[in-house]
């Protein structure tokens, strides 16, 4: 396949950035999207150009590190897919593809397609855990959990923290991420004692980081590679309201 890529290049947070066009030839349909970029980067290095910086690690759709806006959609048009799991066979020969970083004020661009998502860590620091000391937990069978609850908690816990939801949201809201975390712990008995204080602390931190509010547009869940559902947000809001009413 032959492709034309329009890629966002930005030297650092202070640089204003611009789109640069590259031609890539002999792309195999079996390549992943990142492998296609690897091939281009090899060429750029040899030509003495700066290769395109992008984040990635597992290349298995689980670490949440990769992520770019492809043709206007976070992680590209294919549903429930991370960028590293997107393959070139889904593109037409001779297509033009635009590639941009996540764009949201709380995710400043570090370089090219690499952004700083540490705001997510700070949301977790605010309360996204169970306060349990290491080394002296009770026997695991002393706390039975209904299978339905365990499964639902698991579904929410599969969020990979990629930030596509934020990038897709017209308000730059981090509600889906935060709600996934809150839902995971609030469905389990272990999470109950800190349930309301956790919801309050995490939502307040999310606001403090400068993420926008949720207006239920649903763009987040449409691009989420793990299919985290919108109703987690409703659950978060309920707990948040209860916490504030107290």
């Amino acid at each position, binding site marked *: 396949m032959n492709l034309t890529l329009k890629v966002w290049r930005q*030297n*650092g947070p202070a640089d204003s950035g611009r789109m640069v066009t590259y031609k890539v030839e002999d792309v*195999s*349909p*079996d*390549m992943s999207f*990142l*492998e296609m970029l*690897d*091939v281009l980067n090899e060429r750029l290095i*040899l030509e*003495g*150009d*700066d*290769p395109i910086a992008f984040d990635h*690690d*597992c*290349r*298995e759709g*689980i*670490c*949440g*590190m990769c992520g770019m806006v492809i043709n206007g959609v976070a992680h590209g048009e294919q549903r429930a*897919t991370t960028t590293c799991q997107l*393959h070139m*066979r889904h593109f037409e020969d001779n297509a033009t593809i635009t590639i941009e970083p996540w764009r949201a004020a709380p995710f400043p661009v570090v*370089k090219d397609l*690499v952004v700083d998502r*540490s705001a*997510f*860590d700070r949301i*977790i*620091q605010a309360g*996204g*855990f*169970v306060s*349990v*000391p*290491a*080394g002296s*937990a009770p*026997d*695991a*069978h002393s706390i*039975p*959990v*209904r*299978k339905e609850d*365990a*499964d639902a*908690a*698991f579904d929410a*816990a*599969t969020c*990979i*923290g990629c930030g596509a939801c934020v990038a897709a949201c017209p308000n730059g809201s981090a509600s889906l991420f935060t709600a996934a975390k809150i839902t995971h*712990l609030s469905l*389990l008995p*272990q*999470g109950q004692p800190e349930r309301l204080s956790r919801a309050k602390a995490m939502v307040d931190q999310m606001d403090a980081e400068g993420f926008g509010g949720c207006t239920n547009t649903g763009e987040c869940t449409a691009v989420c590679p793990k299919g985290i559902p919108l109703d987690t947000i409703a659950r978060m809001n309920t707990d948040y309201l209860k916490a504030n009413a107290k």
Partner: protein
Amino acid sequence: MKFTEGPEIRDTKAPAGPIEERWEKRKFSAKLVNPANKRKLNVIVVGTGLAGGSAAATLGELGYNVKSFCYQDTPRRAHSIAAQGGINAAKNYRGDGDSIYRLFYDTVKGGDFRARESNVYRLAQVSVNIIDQAVAQGVPFAREYGGLLDTRSFGGAQVSRTFYARGQTGQQLLLGAYQALERQIAAGTVTMHTRHEMLDVIVSDGRARGVIVRDMVTGEIERHLADAVVLATGGYGNVFFLSTNAKGCNTTAIWRAHERGAYFANPCYTQIHPTCIPVSGEYQSKLTLMSESLRNDGRVWVPLRKNDTRAPGDIPDEERDYYLERIYPAFGNLVPRDIASRAAKNVCDEGRGVGPGGLGVYLDFRDAIARLGRDAVEKKYGNLFEMYERITGENPYDVPMRIYPAVHYTMGGLWVDYDLQSTIPGLFVIGEANFSDHGANRLGASALMQGLADGYFVLPTTLGDYLAAGPFGDVDEEAVAEAEIKVRSKIDRLLAVNGTRTPDSFHRELGKLMWDYCGMERTEESLRKALERIPELREEFWQNVKVSGTAEELNQVLEKAGRVADFFDLAELMCLDALVRTESCGGHFRAESQDADGEALRDDEHFAHVSAWESTPDGPVLHKEALEYEYVKMTQRSYK
């Protein structure tokens, strides 16, 4: 490559006496640190996977002043996140006869009698607490309808002791450790440095006292001092370029510690996983694992005839060779990883492999679908089938999957004693980065167990014992400056070459060489070839590599080049270790050492030892640590 033999390692610090009591004894003899003093003691933990994340969180909570480092943008993305299958624990919740002793026994046997008894016994004991800890943190393990934890069985074991969270056990366990870590960060006991790569250990007065790191965003070289350093930096399987590891996995941290005096143990033991998606082209950047659980229902076969190019559906049953069922009737498709991998290689070497280049075998669900129905198969394996289709573009419900073995896990690593301390006092090594518990082969679901046992339970006790003698006073400024200069000059040297080949092109070539000559099967001849070729290639690397950009910015080419440089040196040691060990065991198969049936032939008389390599200016020095088996009788492993 020349090497000499040095004195044997005699003391591993394991207490004597009955094996069940050793860990209790060690815990009791460990000195305690007064809570008021803990705050004055500084600990550096490099790596935030299951091992490092759990260690940093626990040490922080105990009250030490912890600094933690990782090269990703957040600790939650460490390679541990990718583990799929599960984690073992001797809970005997099923009442199927499991016990600490049985888990201990299976693990020692699975490791082909090349692991330490004391360590493995402790691992089995502690495994029980890991599950309790994770559940208390809210890790959503699979449950039965009655609300209790579900378990499953896994390759190489006959009891059901594997706890799991769908196919994402590593993810859920890591998020548990990550959340505990973030809690400590919020509490101020742990300071986190993401996007920082450790490039050297500072050794002052014979003790590890800090690290030199590079801020990967600004390029700044920083020094961080402490009373002890913990390396939890994972495995080095990426020396083969193609592997199931995350792309960033590397050897830099442990290799540079090795250059500073830490012994490197059993570098040649590499686990090859039998069920990965085969390589499809030259551009390929990594291999994807298909869960071993597929072999519970899938049947493995190749055509009977060589070069049979018919579509799989056109090959009648009489013309198929279900080779695992044929050779190993007792275990069939469920033989352990090393056995299944080698059998696949053998049939492909005979010219009966399928798919591009003949490097693949079929994993066929035709019979399972006929027996259980498509729906049932979809329920059990649907997500794996989808993943396969996404990568290959083929639908495994209609055509059999193609699989091939791939590099997966490295059993070798820095040598540590029973306290997880390396040969540099104050330098502790945990998780996949050390060599300690798996022997020559690792059974499924036991790496997660080891990482968490080390981090949550073992290290916090043994490190405390070491720190009880601290704080250790001022660090020698010269030692720090020297380490800093060494790091800077390596970076400058890489940038100065300005040649015509990319770091990746060298890595690819080195990886292919290692796979061909030091991979699933090694011979004296292949290893000698590798030992000849690696120095030539390294020479070319230092003459001809091209690293673009500068040192003072985010520079992924520079990061890569530094790691590839270390892989060259490690690769050489791996081949040397493999050459010296003229027996076959676990993940190390020397073709000269096999029995009449082509099975691995161990040589206990000469090789029942750990090979611990010391790096000296005059070349490597081999120290042997004898392995003694008091509780498990050494037998030939047989799965027939």
